[in-house]
């Protein structure tokens, strides 16, 4: 079973795949393609991955979450060209209790972002393209902040 997919992600299907009569509490996280990034209008984007490693690390993360909490985890990350509003990533954690479901879901998305080798190339409204580097854009510098409107 692949964690990476080039087809649209169906969240309901992912929830159905992990839930069961004894796992009736399901926490999910869904990440959609945003229309802005770093203050610039995004028109489209493309995800690429180091696929064998990405699959392997996803399996590792799912295994870690299922070992730490009594949950079943479903995880999908989309690759290829995506449009604004498309689902880029979805994680579902099904458990007997919602504490466990939320904890495991949160763990999986944090670790995915931190460890899975996936990259994102954004095409901006002006036609320019850029590989996203979260380490540079996550926290704008003081100078950048000063240039921002206060509202």
């Amino acid at each position: 079973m692949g964690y990476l997919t080039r087809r649209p992600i169906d969240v309901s299907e992912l929830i159905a795949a992990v839930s069961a009569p004894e796992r009736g509490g399901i926490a999910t996280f869904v990440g959609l393609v945003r229309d802005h990034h770093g203050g610039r209008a995004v028109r489209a984007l493309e995800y690429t991955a180091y696929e064998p490693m990405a699959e392997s690390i996803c399996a590792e993360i799912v295994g870690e979450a299922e070992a730490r909490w009594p949950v079943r985890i479903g995880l999908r990350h989309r690759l290829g060209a995506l449009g604004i509003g498309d689902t880029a990533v979805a994680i579902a954690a099904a458990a007997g209790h919602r504490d466990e479901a939320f904890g495991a879901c949160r763990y999986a998305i944090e670790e995915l972002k931190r460890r899975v080798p996936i990259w994102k190339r954004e095409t901006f409204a002006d036609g320019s393209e850029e590989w996203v580097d979260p380490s540079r854009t996550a926290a704008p510098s003081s100078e950048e902040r000063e240039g921002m409107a206060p509202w």
Partner: protein
Amino acid sequence: MAAVPPAPFTIRVQLFARYAELLGADHLDVVTDGPLTVGEILSRVRAFPGGGTIGVGTLVAVNLRQAPLSAPVTRGDEVAILPPLAGG
């Protein structure tokens, strides 16, 4: 008895995303006649045209797992240099 000179071999280094663009290739072959550390491989790749932009803190994977600069790399290992991750 005289030492047999070691036979050189190549270690294939995969490049992705921004690094593949900067170096104009999705892989490079590093030729060596013995094991190298991850750090040594990074130095060799930085010497290629466009390689100077590969940061010091860059992640390197050996056989699908992140590896420290001191990790040894030898014949048959799968090496990849990973630009800053942006999944999710």
